[in-house]
């Protein structure tokens, strides 16, 4: 979930917290990651087997090669869009990195709720996406409308 913010500062702050997409128990954790354009994501290997993380479709394209437990590789997500992440050794490992060109974004919690802090009052175009969706949902929302509710069709 994110809000368009064309007037926002162009890049993440240098002291922004590190973001990681973990490889643990033959699984990417979390399954869905949302980051801002310009964010470097860590890909640590916390399994005793090797992994070979790659993304080949749309979004950021990369192939990190193999690296053992206790080590990590990093990827700079420098363009907006959805990156589908796979492991070339374990075909059932898959995850998504949604890169958004906005500082106002969040991932839902297990109940479907989320909070975005620090959003200036005003009208926005919102976008929502979830795994399995053919396309993202978009619409307009104003801070005067109260909490935003979205129902997937």
């Amino acid at each position, binding site marked *: 979930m994110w809000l368009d913010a064309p007037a926002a500062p162009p890049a993440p702050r240098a002291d922004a917290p590190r973001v990681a997409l973990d490889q643990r128990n033959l699984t990417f954790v979390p399954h869905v990651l949302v980051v801002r354009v310009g964010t470097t994501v860590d890909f640590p290997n916390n399994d005793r087997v090797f992994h070979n993380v790659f993304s080949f479709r749309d979004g950021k394209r990369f192939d990190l090669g193999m690296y053992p437990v206790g080590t990590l590789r990093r990827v700079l997500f420098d363009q907006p869009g959805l990156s589908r992440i796979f492991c070339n050794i374990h075909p059932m490992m898959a995850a998504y990195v949604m890169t958004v060109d906005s500082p106002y974004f969040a991932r839902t*919690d297990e109940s479907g709720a989320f909070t975005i802090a620090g959003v200036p009052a005003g009208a926005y175009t919102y976008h929502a996406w979830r795994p399995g969706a053919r396309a993202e949902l978009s619409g307009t929302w104003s801070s005067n409308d109260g909490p935003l509710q979205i129902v997937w069709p």
Partner: protein
Amino acid sequence: MKLLALIVCAACVAHVRPAGAQSITAEAAVTGGYSTDEATAAAVQARLFGDVHGVRFFGEVAWANRWLSDSDHETDSFNAAYPYSNQVQAIEAYGERLFRPRGQLLGLRGGRFRTPFGIYNGSDHAYSGFLRAPLVRYEEYAPVANTFLENGADLVVGTPRLTVETAIAAPGDVGEIVRRSGVDGVVRVQGYFGPFIAGASYMTAPLAEGSLAAEGRNHAAGIDIRWMHAGVQLRGEWISGRPFGEKKSTGWYADALIHRTMMGPVTAVVRVERLDFAERETGSEEYLSRQTAGVRINVAGGIALQLNVLHQSGDADYLPHAVDVAVTWSVRKPWKPGKPGEPGEP
């Protein structure tokens, strides 16, 4: 500035799973294959793995069978990491703890696991694009076979760049060739230097059943190396040992797994290999040499297609040419105890 509370009512939501939380994943793979090497095959593998109270666990059972048009025909097709012996068998079942004290690595594993010798993980062979195990790891004359399993304990110490792995166990092999009862010892040293991963392994184990020798042990040694850059992975192993006693089996393979990002879901594989061995019955020294080219295509929906074309020479029991084709469908279901599962894969 204003704090906004937004709510999304979604049919599916992504689950955050912090490190150390409980998680369990179930996975199944179904494979069907055909080889011009006069074999048709089917296999099912089921796995359960995850974290519970800080202990990682992994369990796998497999059933597989091959139907040969000529029952006397010799072939190792569809034997990359699982036995095709028409039995439901426990492959791995272990629990482990990993500790990272001050950047070091300490791992303890107990249960049933693959022999930690060389390039040994099931995923290094079963999913790589090759439908046959390397000859030097095929159970018939291999000094260390992919169907070797250990019932015991395993310890890893070191740093991410240099680890020493030691296992003490009893053989729990699956497949047609199994080792006699007794005690195994395995030591493996592995280093990680830039694009290189290199290892050396040693195993002392009981001889295989069917050995003519009444006593003795199989002392196997091996070296392995992997190199990876820009989607190209080169691997090689050399292994030597005496699985049946007096006569030595020595073999090697070198292969390439090519998956550049521009290749999309396609992985190309190439392997050259050779095994020198002695016939158990006659003691005559023989060899088998093989060259393989293949491809694996990850189609949508958990379906993967694999095609291997191979040429072999040496042992007259093996056909000079063969084409292996297989289709695998995999499905995965992750969940946290008491929570609904995650949505489907991309």
